[in-house]
């Protein structure tokens, strides 16, 4: 599938119309019962009407950055009038009464929202199997998981059901599914994209991210989405331009603490060979993040702690599903019993980490760890421009393969540090798969805070360079 720039130039040359583009998209969407990437797809007539309107606007001379471009939204972001289930029974019938800021910006940029994508319940998971409405399948191998929690968005992009998709990334939920589906998945610096309208999982870690097949589309979408929002006090202005520019990256760090023998052999091979490839053009140096290994532990106390509080609002009193009972206390318990097992596990873990007698040892210590990570990355970026890691320790796993929740948590091993340290990071598919039918392997680049544009420009350079080989 073409990137947005190519679509626009074809539209300029009248080779295609947005209506054609939408027809093709609808054709793909009609196969979604196999993948279950979407929890909700907008009515075809409505979508065609939107595409027609985009064509008219174009013909009238309007040139919006994403005019007529189909986009999928993870079902934990609010779109006025559309359901927002978060993959949970508790919000099964909830319809959003307002637009998330990111959604509003996409609409203003002319994008056409095709539907809401599947996810692990409240974005808690790494396989999309924790959705109350059934798992999503990996378009590259339907017996495999597309990763998670933004598995639906990744599958939608990988299968061509939308050109772009929004995901959310709290501990890797955009990058890991991108790695599993061979797409680009970008988690910006914390605060770069407003979280207003993104249903909170862990507020200090959550970021909306972009999934696409082409790095230039990631840049374009980011330029639409970035910016301080008066509705989100943690958002801030971080520079982003619609086009890439020369990145001037010279030194790339590889993390000493990642023992490559711990990696799956395919991942290890891809990682080693890519380091090798990189070192032909860039200076590759070993760097140390001494607290790297403990990062996952910090993540698995901070994220559940915040989640236990964020998910307290689901009491059935004002919206969502309400389980009837004789009194409030019974009603709220019955209602909250609709949460799936993983959500309950994290709420309980988080309540424990914050409870009297344990908070100092768990929640507070986890934040110490977080501060160490911030400090250590700071030191590292005095020396290198980017840090490279594998995105995941393994290639895509089979649906149902992982039973122990802890094993699944380990899928976030390499992605959580960027969330904890507020840094921008992206998954780039390993470009040199020998057999094109092999499952994809993901490579992660992490950049200094606020250098999102440099990171994306660098990825674009790498990708073009690799394609030319």
């Amino acid at each position: 599938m073409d990137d947005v720039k190519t679509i626009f130039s074809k539209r300029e040359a009248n080779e295609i119309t947005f209506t054609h583009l939408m027809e093709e998209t609808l054709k793909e969407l009609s196969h979604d019962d196999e993948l279950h990437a979407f929890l909700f797809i907008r009515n075809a007539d409505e979508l065609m009407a939107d595409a027609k309107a985009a064509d008219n606007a174009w013909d009238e001379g309007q040139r919006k950055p994403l005019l007529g471009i189909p986009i999928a939204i993870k079902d934990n972001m609010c779109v006025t009038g559309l359901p927002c289930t978060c993959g949970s029974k508790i919000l099964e019938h909830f319809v959003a009464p307002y637009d998330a800021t990111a959604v509003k910006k996409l609409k203003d940029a002319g994008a056409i929202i095709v539907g809401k994508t599947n996810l692990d319940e409240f974005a808690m998971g790494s396989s999309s199997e924790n959705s109350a409405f059934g798992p999503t399948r990996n378009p590259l191998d339907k017996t495999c998981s597309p990763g998670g929690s933004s598995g639906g968005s990744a599958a939608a992009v990988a299968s061509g059901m939308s050109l772009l998709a929004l995901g959310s990334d709290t501990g890797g939920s955009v990058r890991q599914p991108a790695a599993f589906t061979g797409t680009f998945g970008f988690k910006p610096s914390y605060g770069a994209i407003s979280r207003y309208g993104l249903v909170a999982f862990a507020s200090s870690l959550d970021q909306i991210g972009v999934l696409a097949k082409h790095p230039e589309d990631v840049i374009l979408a980011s330029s639409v989405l970035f910016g301080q929002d008066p509705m989100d006090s943690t958002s801030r202005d971080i520079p982003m331009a619609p086009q890439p520019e020369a990145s001037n990256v010279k030194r790339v760090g590889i993390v000493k603490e990642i023992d490559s023998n711990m990696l799956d052999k395919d991942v290890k091979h891809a990682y080693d060979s890519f380091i090798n490839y990189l070192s032909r053009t860039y200076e590759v140096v070993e760097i140390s993040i001494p607290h790297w290994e403990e990062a996952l532990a910090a993540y698995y106390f901070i994220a559940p702690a915040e989640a236990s509080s964020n998910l307290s609002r689901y009491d059935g009193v004002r919206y969502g599903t309400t389980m009837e009972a004789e009194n409030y206390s019974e009603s709220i318990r019955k209602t909250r019993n609709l949460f799936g097992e993983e959500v309950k596990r994290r709420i309980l873990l988080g309540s424990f980490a914050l409870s009297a007698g344990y908070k100092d040892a768990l929640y507070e210590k986890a934040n110490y760890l977080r501060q160490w990570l911030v400090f250590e990355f700071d030191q590292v970026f005095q020396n290198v421009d980017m840090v490279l890691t594998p995105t995941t320790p393994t290639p895509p796993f089979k649906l149902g393969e992982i039973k122990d929740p802890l094993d699944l948590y380990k899928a976030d091993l390499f992605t959580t540090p960027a969330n904890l340290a507020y840094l921008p990071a992206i998954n780039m598919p390993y470009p040199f798969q020998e057999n094109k039918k092999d499952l994809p392997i993901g490579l992660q680049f992490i950049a200094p805070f606020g250098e999102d544009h440099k990171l994306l420009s660098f990825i674009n350079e790498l990708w073009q360079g690799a394609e030319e080989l």
Partner: protein
Amino acid sequence: MNFKFVAGLEIHVQLNTKTKMFCSCPTEGLDVPNTRVCPVCLGYPGTLPVINREAVIMAIALGKALNGHINMISRFHRKNYFYPDLPKGYQITQGDVPIIENAVLPLSTGKNIPIKRMHLEEDAAKSVHVSSSGRLAGAQETLLDFNRSGVPLIEIVTDPVFESPEEATLFVEELQATLRYLGISNAQMELGQLRCDVNVSVEVDGKEGTRVEIKNLNSTRSIRQALTYEYNRHVEAYKRGENIITETLAFDEKTGKTRTMRTKQSSADYRYFPEPDLPPLILTEELFEEANRYNGSFLDAYHNALSWTNKEADARTLALNKDQYMLYSSLAEKGFDKKLLNRMILIDLPNILSEVAKTWGDVDKTFLNSILQLQQDGKITPAVAKDLLWQAARGNDPMKYAEEHELLKHENIDIKQIISDVLQQNPDAVEKYKKGNANVIGFLLGQVMKKTKGTVDPNQTRALLEQMLNE
């Protein structure tokens, strides 16, 4: 045994900002339930708080007024608990670093009351418990109005520093007045704009007693009554050798007694942690400058009132009622005689207002001005002045009324002529007087006063009447 009363207060004050603490919903027009709401203050998924700048300015103003330590960097925290009136399942409040610490409220009695901390937070929804038999008891349903959800609050906490129920009550009264003079809250307890919880215990021979908490006291009268009741209850129990148990109590205004209230959660563990949706609140010079907009002072008012009335009790009454004080103050500025003012503003008008069910705010200042001017110029008698005050309280222009009803003293009024008319028209009474019945003079005087509409001095008239009767 030696008993000593000990109490500490926890006071919630609604700030009178135009919008809520963390969203732009208006704080006015709250009478139609659930209309001043938005996704933020209803705790909808995906919503985020944004701090109201004016609430911060008001907190700074209060901190400055009460000589508190103002933290240049403070944080908001989440206090987690479940209750239907709490839409997010947590309240955004301030934890270990509040915006203000260690302030002092100087009482008009000269005593300084230390305040431990004052912090910003959001109000919960208003809940009404309804049952078939009426409200509250045996509630079958809870009804909620979220208009109040998210209204800015400042919580004011003292250590157990109060030595008597009267002192605690005085503190609340003068705090209330302080907030009103500053202009940051209307602080009306009956409207829930100021709400008071009290911790109370009784020391026995210098040994600390068991502390109980009394929740939701909604008038200063209740505070005094509840504290007195609890003090007596504790003292009686200790005298009998019984213990007091730690518990939360409610005060029943009808019976004047406290009763046990079951608590929300058996084991309160609020799991406070920094609100991740709000970076630290860092104060700037600009905010401090803007806080100067709120600058009225109760204590200044009290001292002025004292200089006018020369009586502490009168001065306190006057200063505690800001509207009354402002009226007095503006008339005093015009140089009216203090005796006239004290009579009008401290005695007559309060009575008249309560008779006609009006408030200080309803009184037209220019009307009072006219009456005082007429009095000062000797154009009306005290009786007419009071009559005109009634008219003014009813909203009638006293000047116009006086003219229409010819109530003004006329230089050229022929009082002798009027008296001789009255004597001529009442020959029976004159006869009785001459036969030695002195009582009829009252009747005759009344007739004269009626004809003159009270515009003549009664004592002088009486003397003249007697003189003419004896002629």
